[in-house]
Structures are given as structure tokens and as C-alpha cells.
């Protein structure tokens, strides 16, 4: 009987899982404190936008949350493809963690957006290309997590969700193309665009710091969730071992 997983890494112990979770919380705590600092910076030391007024301040949550969600989903797709290729269980654990954190960031993005949209656009929601794309990405990964939750077998769950992850990655350009033909109302990119950033220097600084902080928050939360995944696996293999020991005992008796 072997206690080694198919990827060659040993079955996780609860101690190791607890260690990863503790480190994850430490990183998350630092990120949350830094996030508080970013809002002090945004509210007190960054100029108020001339036309949008204070409503523009939500930009420093909305944009980094969108960045976090979209990178998280892209990494799920990447980890899924690598999982089907290499079969390393760590990739599946990472994909699971990244999908959950990504859905959380997407929820932040989809709630802060309408709060800003109501005073500035005069409407909570519009079927603009970018809004629609992110909404469907959110639904796609909610479905991904629902499928994971509905599957019992660990190995099967990993394979199936990897298939959905890869197909989701390929779906993005199609959704983008099909919704792009509706006239877009969303503010055009102010940082990542071919010409130089059009955001004033002070605002750009605050934005970049908040993107960095959200990236750290993403890393922290993924570590916590990864540790929880390890703990789940440790528990499952404990149960399996106990069941096998019982079988052996019965056989001997």
C-alpha cells in the first residue's frame, strides 16, 4: 500500500496545512492593513477628480478588484491546462483557491461598479461590452465552483474542473467579440493602453499602489484557501487509512 499521491508529492498532513493557512493569514493581514493605508492615501492625499468628484474614489477599489479577478481567472485557466498535462495535484488545489478568490474579487468589482455608475452614468447597470463580459466570467466561475462542489471523487473533480477551466479560457475572446458590437459606455482604459497613461500622476500613483496591495491580498487569500484544501485532503486520506486499517483488522480476525 502506498501513501504517495499520483504526482509524487506526499499526502499532506494537517500540520503542514495549518502552517500554510497561518502564513496565508499573515500575508492577508498585511494586505488588509496596506489596503486601509491606500484608502487614507486615496481620500486624503490624492486630488479629487474635477468632474466626477468624490465618486471617483471608488476607482481605487474597483480597478484593483477587477485586476485581481481577471488575473485570478486567467491563472485558473492556465493551471487547468497544466493540470491536464502534468497531472500534478498542486495545480488543481491552486486552481480551486484561485477560482474562489477570483469570484470574491469579481463580486467586489460587480458591486462597486454600479455604486459608481448610478451617480455618474445615471444607471446602476448597462449592457456595455466590458460589464457583460465580466458578469459572464463571474457566472462562468460560479458554475465552475458549483461543479466542484457537486463532485465527490477528488481526482474526477480535478479533471472535470480542469476541462471547464480550459474551455472558459477559450470562451473569453468569443464573449468579448459578441458583446463588443454593442456600443461601449465603460470608461476607456487610462493606464494600460498603447499611448502613455492619461491619468494624472498623483492618481496613477495611488492606483498602482492599490493594484499592488490587491495583488498581495490575492496571494494571501489564495494561500489560506490552498491550506484549507490541504487540510481537506489530509482529512480524506486519514479516513481512507482508517477504513483500510479496519479492513485489515477484520481480515485478520
Amino acid at each position, binding site marked *: 500500500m502506498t501513501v504517495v499521491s*499520483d504526482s509524487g508529492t506526499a499526502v499532506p498532513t494537517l500540520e503542514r496545512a495549518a502552517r500554510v493557512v497561518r502564513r496565508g493569514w499573515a500575508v492577508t493581514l498585511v494586505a488588509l492593513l496596506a489596503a486601509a493605508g491606500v484608502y487614507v492615501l486615496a481620500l486624503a492625499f490624492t486630488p479629487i477628480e474635477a468632474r466626477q468628484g468624490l465618486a471617483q474614489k471608488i476607482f481605487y477599489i474597483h480597478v484593483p478588484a477587477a485586476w485581481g479577478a481577471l488575473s485570478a481567472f486567467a491563472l485558473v485557466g492556465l493551471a487547468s491546462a497544466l*493540470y*491536464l498535462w502534468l*497531472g500534478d495535484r498542486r495545480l488543481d488545489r491552486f486552481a480551486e483557491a484561485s477560482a474562489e478568490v477570483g469570484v470574491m474579487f469579481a463580486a467586489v468589482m460587480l458591486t462597486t461598479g454600479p455604486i459608481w455608475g448610478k451617480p455618474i452614468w445615471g444607471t446602476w447597470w448597462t449592457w456595455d461590452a466590458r460589464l457583460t463580459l465580466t458578469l*459572464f466570467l463571474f*457566472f*462562468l466561475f*460560479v*458554475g*465552475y465552483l*458549483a*461543479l466542484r462542489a*457537486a*463532485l465527490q*471523487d477528488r*481526482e*474526477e473533480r480535478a*479533471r*472535470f474542473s*480542469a*476541462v*471547464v477551466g*480550459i*474551455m*472558459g479560457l*477559450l*470562451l473569453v475572446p*468569443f*464573449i468579448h*467579440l*459578441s*458583446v463588443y*458590437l454593442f456600443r461601449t459606455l465603460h470608461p476607456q482604459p487610462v493606464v494600460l493602453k498603447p499611448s502613455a497613461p492619461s491619468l494624472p500622476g498623483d492618481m496613477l500613483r495611488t492606483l498602482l499602489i492599490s493594484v499592488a496591495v490587491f495583488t498581495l491580498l490575492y496571494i494571501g487569500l489564495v494561500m489560506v484557501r490552498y491550506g484549507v484544501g490541504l487540510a481537506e485532503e489530509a482529512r480524506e486520506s486519514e479516513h481512507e487509512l482508517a477504513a483500510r486499517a479496519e479492513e485489515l483488522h477484520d481480515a485478520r480476525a
Partner: protein
Amino acid sequence: MAERPAPRGGAGAASGGLLRLALTVAAKDLRMELRSRTALLSALVFAALVLVVFNFARDPTRLAAIDLAPSVLWITFAFAAMVAMNRAFHVESAHAALDGLLLAPVPREAIFLGKYVANLAFVGAVEAVALPLFILFFNVDLGPHWPAVLAVIALATAGFVAVGTIFSAMVVRTRFAELMLPVLLLPFMVPPLTGAVQATSRLLAGRPLSEVVGWLRLLAVYDVVFVTLATLIFAAVVDE
């Protein structure tokens, strides 16, 4: 994932053989369906009911039937297809029939393509009945562009049925398969449905064909990408 065993059955690996094997798998599914007819009849009645219900879901004094027609047509097709596609792997779950199918000396690609062709025939049959009913209930004139309308239906259906076929193989392993399939599949239906509704409404309004070429191209590229991907990735779903 373990290394997939090389396709067994020698000649089956050749593309001509692949197609023949796929058609054998499809013929098996269709024969089963024609003998029981339960799923096909329920899907047909379901499609007809959706069309009837939609007619009562609009205020006839404010909205002309034709304004709503393309959306109604595609919502009906999408719902009926989802009901129909749940069947594909559900029939294999009894008595571990899928294991028997996988043990046959047939490459995985052929099994997927067979299931896909059977689903296409199934969904196509439902559409072939729902389309005349739609014309009847909504007083629609397909007009001079009717071949183009049929092409839009064929292109859109070919795409989402490929994705639905592979997803139905996965959801059959879950407890709420009937609910899980729409949750997973609907985001993937967005591009084909958007393209189909936009193209259909322009064609029904008698707009020139040049206005829908872009949408047709989107549908065709979607078909190529997802039929290829689903065929190749299917082994990862069924091979343990």
C-alpha cells in the same frame, strides 16, 4: 491524469475509420431513442409549450409579435436543446453502460463525435418541429433569406451542442445533473445565442445579407474552436 492508452483497433485511428466508428456510436444512440421515443417527444412538447407560454408573456397591445420573435425562437431552441442534451450520457449511466462503451476498441474521439452527432440529430429534430410552430404562432415570414436563416440555425446549434455534449458527460456524475448543465452551459451559449439572435432579427427584417456576414463568421469560428477542443479534451473527461 494517467497516460491515455493508444487508440485501440488499428484501422480505427484513420480518419475515415474514425468517422465510421463515430456514426456507429451515433446510430446506437438514435436507435435507442427511436425505440423509446420518450425523450424526443418530451423535448418536442417542451419546445411547443415554451413557444405558447411566450406568446402570453407579452402585452399584444404594446409589442408586436415580430419584435420579440427572434429572441423567442432562440430562447426556445436553447431551453429545448438543454433538456435534450441531458439525455446523452444519462442513458449510459444505467448498468455502467459507459464503461462498456469505453472498453470497446474505439478511440475516445470517435465516442465523442458519435455522441455529438446523435445530439445534433436530436436537437435538430426538435428545431425542425419548433421552427414551423414558431412561424405559425408568431406569424413570421422567413422571406427571401430563408436559406440564410437555416444556415444561422445550423451554425449556432453546431457550436453549443458540442459544448453541451462534453458538459453532459461531466454533469451526469453529479447529483443535480439537470440543474448543473444549464449553470455550466449558459455562459458558453452567450456567443452563439447573441450571434444567432442578431443575425436572425436582421434576416427576418429583410436586411441585406452583408449585414450578417460578421455574425456568421463569429458563429463559424466558435464552431471550429469548440468542436475541435471538445473532441480532443473528451479523453480527459472519461479516462481515469
